[in-house]
């Protein structure tokens, strides 16, 4: 596997930053990609996340859980990025769900359906309230438990569970609406 070039530690910055980049750039890129669905955007997110670390003051407290911090930074930077854009035209789902979950078909039609489905969810997430989008993404895309999210965001577990429940309900409602049901 090709490693990115290593030009050396940042001047005036702890070598820790380089170690963080080497250890976490893949997970940051992938977390960003799950939300943006776009490699170029994911690259922008990676740069944003580490640029913020680069600019942090010298007395910035040492990160106790770098992976969680960077994961969350990646999710939020990706959500900021997609929210900052004009809304895409919504594509009705009803034309695309006829064959969903009907076997492992990998034909062009099936691939198109899957693409539409992913795009639909990504567009729906960018319309959520920022905190709900963050909690939803951390739980369903990044695999965080309710307790982990509660710890990272300094929330109660019950609060996380309620937010996830309401967010799911809202997304289901959007799906229903796109399917033309009342």
């Amino acid at each position, binding site marked *: 596997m*090709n490693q990115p070039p290593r*030009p*050396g530690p940042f001047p005036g910055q702890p070598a820790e930053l380089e170690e963080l980049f080497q250890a976490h*750039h*893949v997970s940051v*890129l992938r977390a960003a990609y799950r939300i943006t669905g776009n*490699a170029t955007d994911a690259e922008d997110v990676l740069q944003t996340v580490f640029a913020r670390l*680069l600019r942090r003051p010298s007395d910035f407290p040492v990160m106790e859980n770098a992976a969680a911090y960077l994961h969350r930074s990646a999710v939020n930077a990706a959500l900021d990025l997609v929210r900052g854009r004009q809304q895409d035209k919504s594509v009705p789902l009803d034309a695309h769900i006829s064959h969903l979950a009907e076997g492992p078909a990998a034909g062009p039609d099936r691939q198109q359906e899957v693409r539409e489905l*992913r795009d639909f*969810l990504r567009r729906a997430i960018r319309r959520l309230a920022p905190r709900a989008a963050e909690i939803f993404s951390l739980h369903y895309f990044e695999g965080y438990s309710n307790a982990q999210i509660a710890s990272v965001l300094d929330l109660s577990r019950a609060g996380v569970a309620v937010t996830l429940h309401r967010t799911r309900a809202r997304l289901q409602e959007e799906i229903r609406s796109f399917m033309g049901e009342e």
Partner: protein
Amino acid sequence: MNTRKNNPDHILDQAIAEIRAEEMDQAAVEQAAARVWARLSQASHSLPQAVHSSDDVLRTCADFRALIPAYRAKQLPDAQAWLVEDHIHGCPACRSALEAAQSGNVVGLKPVAQRILAPQWKWAVAAALAVGVGMGAWQMRDTLLPAPGGPRGVVQSVTGSLFRVSDTGGDTLAAGMELGESFRSPAGSAAPLFACNAEA
């Protein structure tokens, strides 16, 4: 009734699963990482000069907006341009300012007071202040306002001596005479007074 494939809950789970299963290509990951690392390294070399060598440390939105004209004219050093882009990325207000600048409309930072108080609230706050000041003044009227002119009281009787204190000396006071601001009685004397503003 919904079949399973048309169930919104099932469709949502399927969409989540599809997104989780979609992996960014490994080669694309490494190429992106290499580009970002190179840019970070380049920026890190010029950051100390670009950001910290002058008094114009970029801390607030106003700092970034001040750089928008130079940014648009491509006159900023790479590191500063990069910082402006990064800030604009995450700041909708400054992004709007940049877009406005590009379209010819200058958007400045509103003074804090204007941002905090809508016009109707300004009038409400002014009215509340006026009422508060009025009530406070009424409560302290005896302390703040000068006493009205005229006599303060009337001597009812004198046991011993009572003198009015004035610039010209001391006049002897007797029962039934009106009192001004100051008077004194020697040790051993007594003079019951009737206050003029007493209700009794």
